[in-house]
C-alpha cells in the first residue's frame, strides 16, 4: 500500500469528477441519523458520520433486484438481467468492509452468484478509518473489525485538514490518479497518521468478555441454552435485526407480471429468517416454528455457521441490530451471557 494525502478542500472536486463516471454513494444526513445514498451534491457527503441506518450492502445486494426478464406466452423465455452500474461507495467503515467480505465469500463460493459478483466487480470501495466509536452499541474492537487488512480500493484517515489515503488496489490507485488531487505523503503526514491511529485505539472499549476466537466454540456449546427461550419471550420477531445486518444475505424470489400478462420479471428481495414462514414448506410443515429456534438460528449464523462455511465471522460488531431492536436484544450481551453460562 502506498500512502497519499488529499486536502479536505480537494475532496468536493474529487467527488464531482467521480460523479461524471460513476454512481457515487456515500453517507448523508437523514434526520438525526445517517444513510448511504447516491450523492447528488458533494457538500451532502458526511464522512464524519457515526453509523448508517443500513449498511452499504444495499448497493451490492439491493433490497430488491431483477434477476431476469421473461416472456410468458408463445415460447416462454427468460433473459438474465443484472443491474450493475459502475459505482464508488465512499466512507465505508471498517466493520462494513468486513461485512462485504462475508458477502463476497457467500456469493462466490460454490455456485457463483452472477448478479452480486457483477455488481461487486463494478464497485469501488473507499473506506474511512473510525477514530471514535459510533455509539455505545458498537463493539467492533472486540470483533476484530476496527482495522482493515484488505478489501477496499482506497482507505481514508482523517488528519484534520486533510485525509491520508491508503491505496488498497490497482483500481483504487487508478481512481485516485485519474480523479483525485492527491500528493505523496511526507514524513510529517506519516507521523500524523501514526499518531491518529495510536490515539484512536484506547477510545474504543472491549465489550466482549472473552476472546473473539472463542466465539464459535461458545456458540457450539450454547445450542440448548435456556437463553433462547428467555429472549423469545420478549423478541417481537419483527426481523429488523436481519434487515440492518451487514452480513445477512438471505433472500426470497418472486415473479411480477406486467398488465399485458405477457412480460414480466423474476425478482429477489431480502428475506428474514426471523419471520414465521421462512422455513415453512409447501406441505405446511414449519421447521423453525418457534421464535426461540429462529432467534437461535440467527445468532448461530452470526457466531458460528458463517465462519465455518465461509471463513469469516458473521458478526462485525457494528451494533446496528442492537440499535434497531425494539426490545433491546444486543448481540454482545447475548454472546457474553452464553459465555458466562459456560464457565
Amino acid at each position, binding site marked *: 500500500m502506498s500512502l497519499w494525502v488529499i486536502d479536505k478542500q480537494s475532496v468536493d472536486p474529487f467527488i464531482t469528477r467521480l460523479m461524471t463516471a460513476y454512481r457515487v454513494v456515500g453517507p448523508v444526513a437523514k434526520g438525526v441519523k445517517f444513510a448511504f445514498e447516491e450523492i447528488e451534491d458533494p457538500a451532502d457527503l458526511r464522512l464524519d458520520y457515526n453509523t448508517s441506518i443500513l449498511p452499504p450492502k444495499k448497493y451490492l445486494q439491493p433490497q430488491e433486484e431483477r*434477476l*431476469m426478464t*421473461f*416472456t*410468458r406466452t408463445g*415460447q*416462454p*423465455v*427468460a*433473459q*438474465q438481467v443484472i443491474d450493475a452500474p459502475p459505482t464508488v461507495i465512499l466512507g465505508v467503515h471498517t466493520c462494513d468492509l468486513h461485512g462485504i467480505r462475508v458477502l463476497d465469500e*457467500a*456469493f462466490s463460493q*460454490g*455456485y*457463483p*452468484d*452472477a*448478479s452480486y459478483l457483477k455488481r461487486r466487480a463494478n464497485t469501488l470501495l473507499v473506506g474511512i478509518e473510525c477514530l471514535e466509536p459510533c455509539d455505545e452499541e458498537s463493539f467492533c474492537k472486540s470483533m476484530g473489525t476496527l482495522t482493515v487488512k484488505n478489501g477496499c480500493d482506497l482507505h481514508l484517515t482523517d488528519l484534520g485538514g486533510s485525509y491520508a489515503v491508503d491505496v488498497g488496489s490497482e483500481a483504487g490507485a487508478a481512481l485516485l490518479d485519474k480523479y483525485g488531487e492527491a500528493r505523496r505523503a511526507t514524513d510529517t503526514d506519516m507521523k500524523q497518521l501514526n499518531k491518529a491511529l495510536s490515539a484512536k485505539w484506547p477510545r474504543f472499549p472491549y465489550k466482549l468478555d472473552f476472546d473473539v476466537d472463542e466465539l464459535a466454540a461458545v456458540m457450539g456449546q450454547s*445450542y440448548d441454552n435456556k437463553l433462547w427461550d428467555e429472549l423469545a419471550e420478549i423478541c417481537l420477531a419483527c426481523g429488523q435485526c436481519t434487515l440492518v445486518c451487514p452480513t445477512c*444475505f*438471505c*433472500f*426470497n*424470489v*418472486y*415473479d411480477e*407480471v406486467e398488465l399485458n*400478462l405477457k412480460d*414480466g420479471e*423474476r425478482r*429477489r428481495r431480502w*428475506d428474514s*429468517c426471523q419471520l414465521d414462514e*421462512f*422455513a*415453512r*414448506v*409447501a*406441505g405446511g*410443515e414449519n*421447521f*423453525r416454528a418457534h421464535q426461540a*429456534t429462529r432467534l437461535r*438460528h440467527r445468532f*448461530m449464523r452470526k457466531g*458460528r*455457521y458463517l465462519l*465455518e*462455511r465461509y471463513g469469516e465471522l458473521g458478526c462485525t460488531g457494528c451494533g446496528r441490530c442492537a440499535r434497531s431492536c425494539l426490545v433491546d436484544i444486543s448481540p454482545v450481551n447475548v454472546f457474553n451471557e452464553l459465555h458466562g453460562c459456560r464457565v
Partner: protein
Amino acid sequence: MATIQSDSVYVPVMARVLDIRPMTRLEKLLTVELPGGQSLGNEPGQFVEVSIFGIGEAPISISSSPSRSNGSFELCVRNVGDVTSALHQMEPGAMVGIRGPFGAGFPTEKMKGKDLLFAAGGLGLAPLRSLINEVLDQRSAFGRVIILYGTKHPSEILFGEELEAWAQREDVEFHMTVDRGDEDWQGHVGVITTLFPRFTINPRNTIAATCGPPIMYRFVLMELLGKGIPEAQIYLSLERRMKCGVGKCGHCQINDLYCCQDGPVFRYADIKGLEEAL
C-alpha cells in the same frame, strides 16, 4: 456440480412437457424433455427447480432414474402450492423452466454389493423410485433388494403398475401397506412400521434409504436401528423450501447445513444431532 447449461445459476433452461399423466387425486407425473434432448445428468435423489414464469419456482425431486433417461426425465408433482397447481393444469407440449439438477443424491456406488432396504411413505416414493430403478437396472451389482411402501389409503398409491412389476420380480422383496383400506383392498393394513416384522436382514451388510413425511422418519428410524443397521448406513431424503437451490437464499438451512447442497439426501449419522433436521 454439473448442471444443465444456462446463462446463470438462476436462469432456467426452457424444457418441454412431453406427457402429463394423472396418478392420484393430488399427484401427476410429468415427463420433461430438455432442449436438444440433452441429458439431465442427474444422480438418484437430486432435485430440479421447476419454473412457470409469472407463477414462480419450486423444488421438485426427480422421479426417474438416470439409467432410464432417454433424453427426458420424470417429476411426480403433488398439487400443494402455486407452482405445482399451475403444473397440474398444463397440457403436453407446454414449456417449463428447469434449473439443476441440484444437491447430493444417494451414493449408488457405495451401495454396490450391499443388501438394500428401501422405505417409502406416500410421496416419498417419488425420489426413492429414481434410486430403486437405477438399482434394478444394474440388479446384479447389488445384494438383496427389499422395498417397503406405505400410503394412507389405496387411492393414494403412486406408480401402481411399477409396484406390481416389483412385486412380481423374484429378486425383489416387496412389502406394501395402507393405513386404512377400502372394500377392494386385499393387502396389508397398518402403518409402514408394521411391515418390519415380516423380514429379517443382515444389518452390517444392509444400506437403508428412506423418504416420507416428517412424522414417518422417527418411527422408521426406530425400526431400522432396531434391526441393527448402523447409523452411517441409513440415508434419508429431507424436504425443505429450497428456493434458490444453490446454497444462497438460506431457506433450506438445517442448523449449519444447506439441504439443497449438503442434502437433500443425508446420512442419519450426520444429522442425528441436528435438532432442526426432523
